[in-house]
């Protein structure tokens, strides 16, 4: 991983418009800078979007919409909260968010990991998909809004419900996993059955599942300085699609 020669650079975002800020980052990447520390980030959009390779971004402040969209490879750490669209259609790499994140996280992502310590908004992990060795993973430490994993076509979502600011909310909102036709959603503790999408049921995990969960939790806990034993100290349930072709029998030729 660290084979390339490292070159560090610290930038201050301040009130720089996102277009200039990202242009500067792209130019520095071309010059060989590999490790970025971005200070005073104030909602600048598209940071690390469509960047490729062995790069790191240490982000102080709140990055704007579509952080790391289409990203392939870099490591992004956000020391605060993130907004909507994190990891949109991302290919590979890792994003660690030490706070909470907004809506539409990991939309259609195909690979890499997104680790969020706190809560996430609506429509997270919609249409995640797996292909060969690409296995996207999202771990949410808090609770999720409606439509988590809708249309999910592959990959893993792990929902812990532990580090939440919403004590009264269910662990996931309504239409959980609705229309999923691939992948798996693991939930720590109980799954509110009435929140599940049509045709879906929560099932107990088996030893293979537990191995996957354990591996993922270990990574997650290390990245966010949490106790993996405490996270594992509770039952998990899984939600899987009932078919790879959920709408295969819907039609008649006219």
């Amino acid at each position, binding site marked *: 991983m660290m084979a390339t020669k490292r070159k560090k650079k610290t930038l201050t975002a301040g009130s720089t418009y996102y277009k200039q800020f990202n242009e500067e980052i792209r130019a520095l990447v071309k010059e060989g800078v590999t490790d970025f520390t971005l200070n005073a980030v104030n909602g600048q959009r598209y940071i690390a979007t469509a960047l490729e390779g062995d790069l790191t971004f240490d982000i102080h402040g709140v990055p704007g919409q579509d952080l790391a969209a289409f990203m392939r490879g870099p490591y992004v750490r956000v020391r605060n909260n993130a907004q909507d669209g994190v990891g949109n259609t991302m290919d590979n790499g890792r994003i660690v968010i030490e706070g909470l994140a907004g809506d539409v996280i990991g939309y259609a992502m195909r690979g890499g990991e997104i680790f969020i310590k706190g809560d996430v908004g609506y429509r997270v992990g919609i*249409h995640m998909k797996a292909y060969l060795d690409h296995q996207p993973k999202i771990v949410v430490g808090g609770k999720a809004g409606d439509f988590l994993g809708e249309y999910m076509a592959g990959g893993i979502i792990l929902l812990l419900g532990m580090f939440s600011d919403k004590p009264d909310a269910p662990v996931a909102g309504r239409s959980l996993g609705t229309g999923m036709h691939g992948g798996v959603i693991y939930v720590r503790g109980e799954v509110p059955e009435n929140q599940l999408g049509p045709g879906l049921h929560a099932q107990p995990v088996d030893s293979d599942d537990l191995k996957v969960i354990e591996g993922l939790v270990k990574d997650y806990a290390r990245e966010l300085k949490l106790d993996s034993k405490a996270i594992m100290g509770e039952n998990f349930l899984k939600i899987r699609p009932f078919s790879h072709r959920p709408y295969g029998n819907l039609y008649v030729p*006219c």
Partner: protein
Amino acid sequence: MLFQPINKNYHEFCIDRDKDLCINCQVCVRQCSYEAHFWDEARQKVMHDNSKCIGCHRCEALCPTAALNIRKKPSDFRTNSLWRPVFLQNIYKQADTGGVLLAGMGSPVDIPVYWDRMLLDASQVTNPSIDPLREPMELKTFLGAKPKRVEIVTGKDGKPSLKTKLTPQIELNYPMMFAAMSFGAINFNLHRAMARAATETGIVYNTGEGGLHKSLYKYGRNTIVQVASGRFGVHLDYLKAGAGIEIKVGQGAKPGIGGHLPGAKINAKVSETRMVPLGSDAISPAPHHDIYSIEDLLQLIYALKEASEYKVPVSVKIAAVHNVSAIASGIARAGADIIAIDGMRGGTGAAPAMIRDNVGIPIELALAQVDQRLRDEGIRNNVSIVASGGIRCSGDVIKAIALGADAVYLGTATLIAVGCTLCGRCYTGKCPWGIATNDTKLSKRQNPDIAAKKLANLIRAWGHEIEEMLGGMGLNSIESLRGNRDKLRGVGLSDTELDILGIKHAGR
């Protein structure tokens, strides 16, 4: 035959086999992917099952002795202009299966075709017509945002140069493009043919939402890569591969709904290109779930511009619906460089029949309204307009341009050029003409060299015709016709229709 289900009797086509001409060679048996023809072991001859015939005419075309004719089955129903046979047949099918009616290709319903009600002008006496065979004629078209004005500075050497910084453009030799038809919906041979024909004629083709196979990246300058809600095969190489990026929001044949590429059509190459597992359905959600507003659309447009480093224009494709002009205004303000509008007669590989036949509006009305609205708001130069959805000939193309389009997409016409007979069963994956199928044997029926040649021929032929019509109007550049509605007149149209189209009645 007595105890068959009712829909077995009321099928659409009959196979006429001339017994004297038939030599029992079984070509029809091998050609028919729906198994309408079969070898009868007991009778030792070729037989057929009329109820399986879908009317593709493949057997008729390949029968070496011309023994076959496919006819519409003469209807046994009593004539009834309300309960036409199609409604009865569909009800029988749905009563049997409980299924949603699925259809392929553009809508066959009888709604007004305004192309046929508009006529072009020509010069007589007062301004000379131009003969394109001997005089220069410009069809070159640039798609992308245009500046409000250009600033020119004169250098020290006295030569002028452009000071205004232009935004990226797609350059077309003809105001036509091959429309978005995904690899998966149609097969690789045809994608290769479209890529080659586009390169040869200096136009572009659109990948559709199924990604771009690695071997076609070399045709990138003549490719628009599409990003739809399923994001199949969308990654940063793909986004940088084309001359433009198109966000597919809607499709004329199925406004407001997504798509399901059936798992049966997903073979190894399709799976590799879309980056989805073999055999699983590829489901495109109805909306992009990251676009719930114009502001969200702006966000995706600029995400794509960031990803492609502002080097290519971004197009947004929508279906023509009731408030299309207000939507188009929002799209223009969200930063799109091109707006593609697909009318309700646009083609599809699969759409619920009720949606295809009942939702949306004709492209002619939508186009005229969008062009007018953007002009009224003073933002027409911010975007190019591409029209599509049932453009059948160069006459339709030139009328679209006079109504305000910068260029058109050709989808159904592209498929017809390589042999499609509009049998409308694209979603079965059994296309007997080797078009809407990924079956290895069937797709071999399309030779990419021959298909590329036919597509290039079509573009050149229509190009010549457009030049002739332009010359006849005394114009020597397609630019002079763009939005020039004075060159159009309506026939048999109401005042409201004329008003919407922004044209006068013939005779005025």
